[in-house]
């Protein structure tokens, strides 16, 4: 292991956890000025993540959670930053490297799902595939997400929970390395939420994903994540395993 990651300075605080591989799967460091309703605010976040983990980014709205996901996916530019995933550099502002979104191996589930209204469920998944990709993933995903009966319907005819499943299936159809979820369950009622959390976990395990989940819903964070990062006013205020973080005797989060 000679080519250790270029980040060795102490800005990076590794999240305590089961780090078997010494080079982290994901390295992230970024700064940006956010324009919030309370005026400009600086986002300054860095973290590392081992392969296969589920990181929950928790915090009040306006803390920069969504911006963080967007910087990671290349949809929003960072003022400065460095992103490396599985040894591949996606962003290095110092070296003027910035991989465009379409070449980053991500699956993104948007808060409002962003399904295309003119495509059927099946077409949404087909659109996600490259011409060279194996089509067999489509029936597999339709079965896994229990969407087979709905595959020829357009999104307008689906319920919120069904749309959410389609968005999730579409996001992982390309077999991305990273799955990014932006408050994906916030539009759903508790019953539906619970069921979809199961789908999420199923998919995460089956496809060996590394997942980042933005949420301000505590039960969801506890159920899904193995690590939590609390983001407040643009900076990480606490991080660690969910139980330790939220149920420590004097946790200020409670």
């Amino acid at each position, binding site marked *: 292991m000679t080519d250790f990651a270029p980040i060795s300075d102490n800005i990076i605080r590794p999240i305590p956890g089961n780090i078997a591989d010494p080079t982290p799967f994901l390295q992230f460091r970024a700064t940006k000025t956010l324009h919030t309703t309370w005026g400009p605010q600086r986002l300054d976040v860095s973290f590392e993540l081992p392969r296969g983990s589920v990181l929950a980014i928790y915090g009040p709205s306006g803390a920069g959670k969504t911006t963080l996901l967007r910087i990671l996916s290349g949809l929003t530019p960072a003022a400065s930053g460095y992103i490396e995933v599985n040894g591949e550099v996606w962003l290095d502002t110092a070296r003027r490297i910035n991989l465009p979104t379409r070449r980053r191996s*991500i699956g993104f589930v948007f808060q409002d799902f962003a399904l295309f209204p003119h495509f059927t469920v099946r077409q949404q998944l087909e659109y996600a595939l490259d011409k060279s990709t194996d089509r067999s993933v489509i029936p597999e995903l339709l079965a896994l997400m229990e969407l087979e009966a709905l595959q020829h319907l357009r999104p307008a005819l689906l319920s919120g929970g069904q749309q959410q499943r389609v968005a999730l299936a579409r996001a992982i159809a390309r077999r991305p390395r990273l799955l990014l979820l932006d408050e994906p369950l916030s539009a759903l009622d508790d019953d539906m939420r619970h069921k979809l959390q199961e789908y999420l976990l199923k998919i995460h395990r089956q496809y060996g994903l590394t997942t980042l989940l933005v949420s301000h819903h505590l039960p969801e964070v506890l159920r899904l994540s193995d690590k939590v990062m609390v983001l407040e006013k643009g900076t990480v205020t606490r991080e660690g395993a969910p139980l330790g973080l939220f149920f420590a005797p004097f946790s200020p989060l409670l």
Partner: protein
Amino acid sequence: MIDWQPLWLSLRLAAITTTILLLLAIPLGYWLAYSRQRWTIAAEAIISLPMVLPPTVLGFYLLLAFSPSQGFGRWLDHHFNIRLAFTFPGLVIASLIYSLPFTVNPIVAGFRTLPADWRNASRTLGKSDWNTLVRILLPNIRASLITGAVLSFAHTIGEFGVVMMIGGSIPGQTRVASIALYDEVQSMNNRTANRYALVLLAFSFIILLLVYGINQQAAKSKTML
């Protein structure tokens, strides 16, 4: 009976203009809708100028530009042996400028009503901007495309002032329906003039019915989403 040639000429001018405008207005509208550069505002204002200018002003400047005795017109004449003043190709160019806002503005508005996350989602699915435009954006602004095309077609048919200035009234070349109507009135042939007028009136009415019909249809399919 009326001479059908001016009507036929009007239709031909409108069809050619609309076809070129659609090809032009899609990339232009895309740029105006999504570019974050400041001077897109200036570009939008310039494109919309023909909507508020007296057509004679536009016609006057085009006449100056096309004049084979100076500047651009002379350059065209010398190097390519092309004359635009009082010719059909000149009318096409004038119509393109004159009707441009009627095609571009609905398309820009169409792009702007689409949720920004559709483009983002398409990018995260590994698609290029071109792919996104053709497969996601354009199918969802179909109503705007049709409205833009129909309006520019109708507007070109209704053109008068600009044609008067740069086209004159050469039969088969630049004597379009609106000009023919004017000529008939000038020579006191009110009966023929009335026929031209009726055809143009009926045509314009049908076009507008079509546009409003399309918009209503689009509104309906939106509420379904």
